[in-house]
């Protein structure tokens, strides 16, 4: 009897083993989707590509100094940068593909803008970069050839022209837009305003007849029907922060910001010299004067190029203004501004100064200041008082310096590395390098070395690009095409 029961048990055991699912049923990943609409990709692209609050940029552009760590950005000791922006381009390419699947021309236009925007971020760091041959891994090209920087810029102009052509204000709506909430007219204005920024970034090439920077600039500026540009702060390319997880202002509750960073001395001194009320919004009084926040004398900075020990001892003596507490206490602090109406005014003012367009530099200069003050919520009468100061009023002889100083002020903790590249292009405002702590023998570096990943993964194309650009090899002091006279 028992033996029979056991035999049955054995058979049952065998049956358990035979009943299994088909292998095909395991080929669906329940944790991630294979389908997307372009709007789902757009949100992430906007938040990453337009991220413009960058501590390294703030140190390299002489807004902030770090008193805890000898930072490469502050002491100009950097060497390489990464090609990480290409990861954003992958998202842009996917968005373009999905846009074509969804037959949404406006997403295609936005994708073209972001391609231009991101390629420019990359080329201005290094020089020649892969563009026409890039983003083709899916077609089997894993080692893209480098385009010359000149070709990269021509492609960027082309992309921006196409974007402006393609976008259809009355066409299909877009979703997932945390910058303009689907307002296509504002996107169109951004395309052209940004186009002007890129043209201005090539001011050293203004005499190159082939590329015709002044002509391109005036062509856009003078045809606002075809090429609308930003007209107010409401057109700013920016997104806002909130208290939601991961959506907070990057410095929120960050002890490292409060303890490590103070404002840079030359920047504070300029704001004090100009009686600039924006100082009170940007900074906190130094610890010697913490009870008098509304006096310019209560503010001081530490020198970006001084050895860290010197800055620390000045700090221990009570000098050095920290950032205004709203950057730390308020999760919304201020928006992430990638390209703003104030900056655009300074770009136009500079174009007028350079006679690329027939326009009044002074009025754009003043409008830029006014817009920036508005951005910080400065009262109108204070703005008027500020503008009436002789040191502020526009003088054609010192126009370029005035425009770039004001542009520099307006880009405090926004617009990413733009102030650094303005300085590279114009030398203005002057970044101090004589404090004794600078690591790079030649002062402010001109560029970044190409990333290790390209040495390892794309060496022959990289070597060709280095050889044709930099006879002395890949180094941070070499001048790339865009800044050669």
């Amino acid at each position: 009897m028992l033996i029979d029961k056991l035999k049955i048990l054995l058979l049952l055991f065998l049956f358990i083993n035979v009943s299994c699912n088909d292998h095909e049923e395991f080929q669906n990943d329940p944790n991630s989707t294979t389908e997307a609409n372009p709007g789902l990709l757009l949100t992430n692209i906007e938040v990453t590509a337009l991220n413009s609050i960058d501590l390294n940029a703030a140190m390299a552009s002489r807004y902030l100094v770090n008193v805890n760590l000898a930072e490469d950005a502050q002491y100009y000791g950097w060497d390489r940068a990464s090609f990480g922006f290409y990861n954003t381009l992958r998202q842009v390419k996917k968005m373009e593909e999905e846009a074509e699947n969804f037959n949404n021309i406006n997403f295609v236009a936005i994708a073209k803008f972001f391609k231009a925007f991101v390629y420019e971020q990359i080329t201005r760091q290094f020089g020649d970069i892969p563009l026409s041959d890039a983003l083709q891994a899916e077609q089997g090209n894993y080692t893209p050839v480098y385009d010359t920087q000149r070709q990269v810029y021509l492609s960027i102009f082309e992309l921006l022209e196409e974007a402006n052509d393609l976008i259809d204000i009355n066409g299909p709506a877009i979703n997932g837009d945390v910058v303009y909430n689907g307002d296509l007219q504002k996107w169109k204005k951004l395309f052209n305003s940004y186009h002007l920024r890129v043209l201005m970034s090539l001011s050293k090439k203004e005499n190159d007849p082939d590329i015709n920077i002044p002509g391109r600039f005036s062509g856009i500026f003078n045809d606002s029907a075809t090429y609308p540009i930003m007209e107010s702060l409401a057109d700013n390319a920016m997104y806002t922060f909130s208290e939601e997880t991961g959506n907070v202002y990057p410095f929120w509750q960050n002890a490292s910001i409060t303890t490590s960073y103070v404002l840079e001395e030359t920047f504070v001194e300029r704001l004090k010299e100009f009686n600039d009320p924006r100082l009170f919004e940007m900074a906190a009084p130094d610890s010697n004067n913490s009870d008098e926040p509304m006096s310019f004398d209560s503010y001081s900075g530490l020198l970006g190029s001084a050895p860290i020990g010197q800055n620390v001892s000045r700090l221990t003596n009570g000098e050095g203004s920290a950032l205004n507490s709203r950057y730390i206490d308020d999760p919304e602090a201020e928006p992430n501004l990638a390209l703003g109406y104030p900056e655009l005014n300074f770009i136009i003012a500079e174009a007028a100064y350079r006679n690329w367009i027939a326009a009044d530099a002074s009025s754009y200069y003043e409008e830029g200041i006014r817009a920036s003050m508005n951005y910080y919520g400065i009262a109108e009468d204070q703005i008027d008082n500020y503008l009436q100061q002789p040191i502020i009023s526009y003088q054609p002889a010192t126009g370029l310096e005035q425009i770039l100083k004001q542009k520099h002020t307006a880009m405090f903790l926004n617009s990413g590395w733009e102030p650094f590249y303005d300085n590279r292009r114009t030398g203005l405002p002057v970044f101090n390098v004589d404090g004794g702590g600078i690591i790079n023998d030649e002062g402010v570096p001109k560029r970044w070395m190409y990333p290790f990943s390209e040495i390892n993964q794309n060496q022959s194309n990289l070597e060709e690009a280095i050889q044709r650009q930099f006879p002395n090899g890949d180094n941070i002091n070499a001048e790339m095409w865009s800044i050669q006279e």
Partner: protein
Amino acid sequence: MKHYYHDKIISLTGYFFITSILLLSLNCSAQANDKAGDTIKKLPESSFPLTIQGKVTDKTTGKPLYGVAIQTFKTNRGTSTDTAGEFELHLEKPAKGLSVSYLGYTSKKIILNDPGYLDIQLSSSISDLDEVVVTALNIKKSKERIGYAVQEVDGKKLVKTQEPNVVSNLTGKVAGLTVFNSTEFFANPGLTLRGESPLIVIDGVPNTSTNLWEINGNDIESINVLKGPPASALYGSIGRNGAILITTKRGNEDGDVQVEITSNTMFQTDFLRVPETQSKYGSGRNGVYVYSDGSGSGQEGSGFSWGPRLDKPDPTTASGFVERVQYNSPIDPETGERIPIPWVSRGKNNLENFFRTGIVNNNTVAVTAGNEKKNIRVSLGNRYQRGIVPNTELTNSNFSIAGRLKYKKFTADVSLNYNKQQTDNIPEVAFSSQSYIYNLALWMGANVDVRDLKDYWVQGQEGYQQRHYSTSFYNNPYFLANEFNRGYYRDVTYGQISLTYDFTNDLKLNVRNGFNYFSLDRNTKQPISFVRDFNRTQGNFSKSYRSEFEFNTDVYLNYERSLTDDINISSTLGASNLYRSTTASTVSTNGLNVPDFYNLANSRNALTGSNFDAESRISSAYATLDIDFLNSIYLGFTGRNDWVTTLPQENNSFFYPSVSLSYVASKMFDLPEIISNLRLRGSWAEVSDASYGGTYSHLESYNSGINWQNNASLTFPGNLISPNLDPQTSSAFEGGLVLGLLDNRLSFDTNFIFVRDFNNLTNAPISVASGFSSRLINANEFEKRGFELVARGSPIRNKDLSWDITFNLSQFRTYLTEIDQGENIGQLEEGDRADKLFTTVWQQTPDGRDIIGNNGINVRDPFNRHIGFSDPDWVYGFLNTFKYKNFDLFIGIDGREGGMAQSRTIRNMYWSGVHPETVNPFRAASSRGVSNYIADGVVVVDGEVEYDTDGNIVNDTREYAENTQVVNYEDYMTTYHSRAYGNHYYDMSFIKLREVSLSYNFPSKMLENTFLKQATVSLIGRNLAIWSKVDYIDPDSGTDLRLQTPSMRNFGIHFNAKF
């Protein structure tokens, strides 16, 4: 030619598993034939009283053995052999059998079925001739028949000085097995077998989700390590990296009910390795410290210990020392100002004062009963650990039941285990403000006494603001211990049922179903004002849940047969199926409304969460064939085919062949007397797997991106998946020699390993400008070369005193032999060792001088340079067992030689200013504001250097002059030790006195009139001493990236009794 015929006695090991396991030899067939006559009749009770006489000899040499213990099963009657090996035992009462045991020999049980003279032969346990080990699929084989490396660890060797996780007890005990013992509470010890992570198999059932916390060492009968692919090929893809087979205990078979109690308690009393910090200078920067509000900004110096000198006399103050305002200054009720207090070194012993004595306690009760036909074992175990960090406790409870039933041609073997691991708090180990070492040693100045921080709330702000000397960067360690808690609750159930049916003596069927299931509930409680990543948080609560289920089935048919007297064959045909599923989810609050109320409903903002599910299956069919010639040549073949779900379906089937040969030369030839055993073995296997990444990593899909103000988003991953993925394959060869000398009192077992890994499933990096940063493809080839030696010896073997030694030694190297995509993998080139380390370094001249920049500080090299290798050169263990009368002494020493790793602790000790070497005249000057440090090195006065893209110098016209630039010492140290890593990689070589246990076995005479049958008491010690090249940290864990917790010495007592 020698012959080995069976006595009427049946060896304990040979008999124990006889019906459920394949036996492949003539010897075993003979056993089976014995058994065919059913069980051996025992002597009728009427035969007693009876005097039994007999002789015990060495099976190999025939020499008599002196001092062999002879005992009856139930009673404590016993005697021992005389110098002629003979004994006489008078039995008043009926007895069923005798157990015969002798150190260095395999014990035997003898059923008394004949009142005549007993001729007993014992086999040396250090010879591998009769040693039976468990191999893949739980098939037991005599070691001499095996053509690949297997090493067994007896369960008894694991129980005396028990570590919280039994893996740690394997350290040094198996050649080729490297255990990286963590100093952290409830952290998994790192375990690698020949450089890879092996499969764990418990009672024949693969368990791919175990971390071995669920196993109670007292339940382990033995552990067999199948070292390489040839040994584990029958497990298919999951067994590619070798396997560790754990066999749990079963009931006894002598018809008796036995209770066994084991109790083990160890105290972690003092530091073996701990960061020692200077106490001459306190918090601050540039010799200045002024407490303002604890935010760390300004004059406080944000936690650096570069402040003013401590313990400086000042006759003008009441205390006689310089006084300063500090965080714990009393407040003057009239002015509201803080009153200065002495600036003295209160914090000298902060680590000792904060950490407490840890306890590891393990109690197990096991009841066993049974006879040859049915037996059962039930055990209950509880392991308790009290961590050295306050408020850390772990309870790990086990319940297990196992038994075996034989009925006619059936054998059933069943085991079921339940385990519960629970702790309310696992301290976090990280280079950040969650770490105790970070808060206590690196950044707390010697002016702070940690004991003053025991009140960890600011008065009036309980629940909202912790009290600390600095509240922006650091956490009060007591606040951290009591309020920042990470709970971990894991329920594990696993078990198996194995049924065997013997159709005939030659043919049997085995069916085994086994399962492993765990559910894990974790939570993290972050109090309000907790500092994480330099952020003062709003409090948080997160809860995560994970469960994994694994069901494994094996069915096989075994046939064995003697073809002629000299040729036997045995063959197996089988199929198996492994199903795995995982489900996991996490939900977190976004800030807390009410302090100290840890519930998801208490979230300030919207909850965030995610979940994960996965299912996979491997179906397999396999066959084996073993052929024995002349009792000395053993040839084995195995083949297995797997069908997996984790690869594209076109390529999901793969086959693994293996072949092995064992040749016992000493049985075939008459060798010189000194050689008692000579055996050659060799094996080859090809094993594949598809275990790259996760279950679905071969499928392309979007990831979820950032959620920006309720706009969900997607991103496309940067890994381009090739549509034609194949499994990755290892082709493994190993060969070895086993040599036994002087009656096997000295033996060597060597093994050479050569493995070629090809078709590796690799995320091969590609130029990110192509749009993707890597491609998942089959690429690259690695070669692994290794050497293992197990040497055993018995220098002393007398009646009263014996000394047995085991020495394990291994080396394992991996070389990159072929790159398919591009010219490098990272900075590795073809032919390089795969463990080559590259990191940021300071620039040097071609003749090795440091290059100093014009700011007086070293210049960083723009290229990462090769600084050493991470793998150890040698891993070894030296195990000594001494026996003197009733005393046993075990001394285990092990270590590793070579291998480098970064020490974050030491690097940051220099940076923060607490390293004892930073106390010197330069610092004294620096703290007075004087810069007088001149870095040793040269400055470039002329010329330039040009590198090619790989960093090789192509043109160098540099001219140098001795550096004369004066720099502030503190500036120099903080910069030098924070901007490059090369100088903080240390040689991780060490030798450790791992384990000492001194045991006293109560003699049976002493226990005669008690209820006890057997009793042992031991004094034990673990982790007692270390010699290493690196200071302050314990290199045993092989890493110090996350600021390791101090390493502790363990002392305790072990007690074992049977009744």
